């Protein structure tokens, strides 16, 4: 596993303590897991995602990610409706490891409350949390 200083956390993203990231795109939110999360999990072998159209509250589990070590739940950083999921992860779960902020994205949410987006952590705040 890498040291926190070796991990990448893009400036433009919002983060939550449960290690998901959020990218705002025209009012919608694209969500995945951070470089730290994929590094901790190790090789991802399966990603379980919700059906598009499903409405979920902020903090609700929206799926799970299985690595060679363990199965971990995924928690929704903001409440809303699932409008898109990354179907590529079904056959290529390794994208979560190789490109966590790009081709390893997980779902796109139509937020039910735009205020949720304001409560996300900045890169600096997330890094502080990781240092604990």
């Amino acid at each position, binding site marked *: 596993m890498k040291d926190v200083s070796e991990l990448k956390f893009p400036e433009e993203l919002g983060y939550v303590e449960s290690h998901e990231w959020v990218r705002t795109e025209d009012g919608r939110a694209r969500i995945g897991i951070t470089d730290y999360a994929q590094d*901790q999990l190790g090789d991802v*072998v*399966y990603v379980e995602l919700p059906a598009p159209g499903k409405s979920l509250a902020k903090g609700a589990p929206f799926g799970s990610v299985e690595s060679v*070590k363990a199965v971990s739940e995924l928690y929704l950083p903001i409440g809303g409706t699932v409008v898109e999921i990354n179907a590529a992860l079904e056959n290529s779960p390794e994208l979560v490891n190789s490109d966590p902020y790009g081709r390893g994205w997980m779902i796109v949410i139509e937020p039910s409350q735009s205020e949720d987006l304001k409560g996300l952590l900045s890169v600096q705040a997330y890094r502080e949390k990781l240092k604990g």
Partner: protein
Amino acid sequence: MTEFPGATGLVLNEPLLWERGRRGRCGFSLPSRDVERRPAPAALTAAGPDFPDLSEVDVVRHYTRLSTWNFSVDAGMYPLGSCTMKYNPKTNERQAAHPGLAGAHPLLPADLCQGALELMAALECLLAEITGLDAVTLQPGAGAHGELTGMLVFHAHHRHQGKPRSKIIVPDTAHGTNPASASLCGYRSVAIASNANGVLSPEAVAAVMDDQTAGIMVTNPNTLGLFEENVKAIADIVHARGGLVYCDGANMNAVLGMVHMGRMGVDVLHLNLHKTFSTPHGGGGPGAGPVCVARHLEPFLPVPRVRLVDNRYVLSEDFPLSIGKLQAFWGNTANLVRAYSYILTMGAEDLKRVSQLAVLNARYIKERLKGIYHLPYDRPCMHECVFSDSLQQAHKVNTLDIAKRLMDYGFHPPTIYFPLVVPGAIMIEPTETESKEDLDLFIESMKAIATEAREAPDRLHQAPTRAKRRRLDETAAARKPCLTG
């Protein structure tokens, strides 16, 4: 110092049976035909399965060679945390092979299998005595099946009270099967975190316990190997709101003859005969997961139940509140015989000593390896201790590398990456059957590996180097499983 048991020897390769087979070979001969040859009805014929043609010696060598690749408690120390891989005394096998028991057909009428039924009734009494609970079912096939049985009993109890409930409290130090068993029974599991000491606090339970919560599932000792010291106060909180207390008894090997589960407030408990009571497991056959309950839950136990009527044992279905039948026939009876044999050969005092030595052995390892490996909860442990790889991470060595390297030293690796509350967990359960010499050898191996992690980390990255198979690609096996021959 004594030599480590790990070594290389004459290890033979062995192909798949399909590659060994040659057309026309045969491993048996039939008596000569003394009736007219007749074609089989067309409806009963087909091409048949793709079985290779093999001689007897082909088959014997194939399985004998495969067996030499195996590792078992008969070969060496198997400190797989949470699994209680103790040595299984051979006398138990001898009793289980007794023709009157091994040959008893499950459809025999009760009058023709009085001995088997008496053994089951006696084993129920012994398990009730050992746990301090009142009634027992021997039906469940293994631990998780016992958990499901317990949850069905919870549900039947609340339904009988006229108030079915929807939730179950499950701490983060419980066995992973607990929330799965609760979900299978239709409950929603409510997770609560253990405190800084690695145990549950009564306040955390009080905060979530309500009138919709059927009860709590506690693993005691928990998966950190720590005794849940607040369990009585927690049971009082749960009972005050009409809930029930389930104890996962998989770790019973730590507390035989030491705790009275009934007085601790436990209503339902399952035992793993294949852990605590020394029946073989881990590829060695089926388990057995009897469930013990307090008196007020006895009416809900599965049927049929063994009963003594007019001095004859019978199988009775006459329990109208029962949750029903959970298993074909009467459970994994050969394992019931082995456990009965174990309990009787040990006796009460020695069973207590089992737990004392199991705890002593784990504490000895914990103290000797503390500081060499990180110990996240530095408290007196019970039958197992949990380290992590955090001191080795600076050398880019992780728990998996340590576990693989241990194989080169001749030991089965411990449980790794569990419990989840410890990142990179290394969970070691030596059991009571390891001698001090073997424990010392294991400790020396772990120390040598920690030194290698500092000085030659690649030796760990490449491990195992002495095993029949080198490092397997676990990722490829999970992503692209190949399930055919």
